[in-house]
């Protein structure tokens, strides 16, 4: 559970990482929304935290919660930053199965057959 940083108070408050934005610009960002960089290059002119997100997602796709874990940022902060990066076209987002569709029989059958395959 211990990372490379010693426990202690956060030196930069979370609200500075988002430049004062308190809420995601889109409320569709879930912890398991999959995000990826929209281009191969890390865009110029981003704030430090957004730059790190763009850098991390330059090489592939991850969910919002994985971005938060790898960058050691609170999920609520990453949601705000990711929303802005999606709005500005820097990131592409893939929504998870919507709550209304989660009990679709076909989806559940796919999950079940997937789990059986994992079990071997």
């Amino acid at each position, binding site marked *: 559970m211990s990372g490379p940083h010693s426990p202690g108070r956060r030196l930069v408050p979370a*609200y500075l990482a988002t430049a004062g934005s308190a809420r995601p610009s889109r409320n569709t960002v879930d912890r*398991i929304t999959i995000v990826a960089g929209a281009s191969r290059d890390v865009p110029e002119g981003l704030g430090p935290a957004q730059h790190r997100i763009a850098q*991390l997602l330059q090489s592939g*796709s991850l969910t919002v919660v994985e971005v938060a874990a790898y*960058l*050691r940022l609170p999920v609520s902060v990453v949601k705000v930053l990711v929303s802005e990066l999606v709005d500005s076209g820097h990131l592409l987002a893939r929504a*998870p199965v919507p709550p209304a569709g989660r009990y679709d029989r076909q989806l559940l059958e*796919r999950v*079940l057959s997937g789990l059986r395959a994992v079990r071997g």
Partner: protein
Amino acid sequence: MGFAPSAADMTGSVVPAGTDAVYLPADHTAVKIVVAGPFAVGKTTLVRSVSEIRPLHTEEVMTSAGALVDDLVGAAAKSTTTVALDFGRHTLPHDLVLYLFGTPGQRRFRALWDDIAVGALGAVVLVDTRRLEDSFEAMELIEERGLPYVVAVNCFPGAPSYPVVRLRQALDLHPDTPLVACDARDTTSCVDALIALVTHLIAHYAEDPA
């Protein structure tokens, strides 16, 4: 807990974080299942047993009132606390990727529940037969959110085993709610508990396209 990024961390002047990131295959759709229960019941162990990546954790910032900090500016004046949340993932055939979230089953974490339970397929509630009642709060939080669940008895060595009928009675389970035995250290056993949940979902919740 290893959180609390340093100033250098936040300005990106250190080695790029996430170089050990295991990226997702293209075009996958994410689904999630909640793993709930009291402290030290085996949530982290189960998540670790199923996860194909090194299990990760986030630090969730809570106010003393038990709210997740969404209003970051207003939160500066409140007293806050953090709770570590373990999660893992497993890529499934058919372009799916399953996320498991170990979620503490205490009512003071209800705001966290509101965030995690949205869109979750269901939950696995872990119980320890030496302290069944410790899992009641998690079961209530799940029921309040209308989330289907299975109860998995984590078979700790030396813990008493009871007849299923008595366990169901003691846990006051709905007749349809599955009760399974599980060894959280054993991957196959954990996957079986997940299979029991999804089988339950198909039997009682599956909807056919209109």
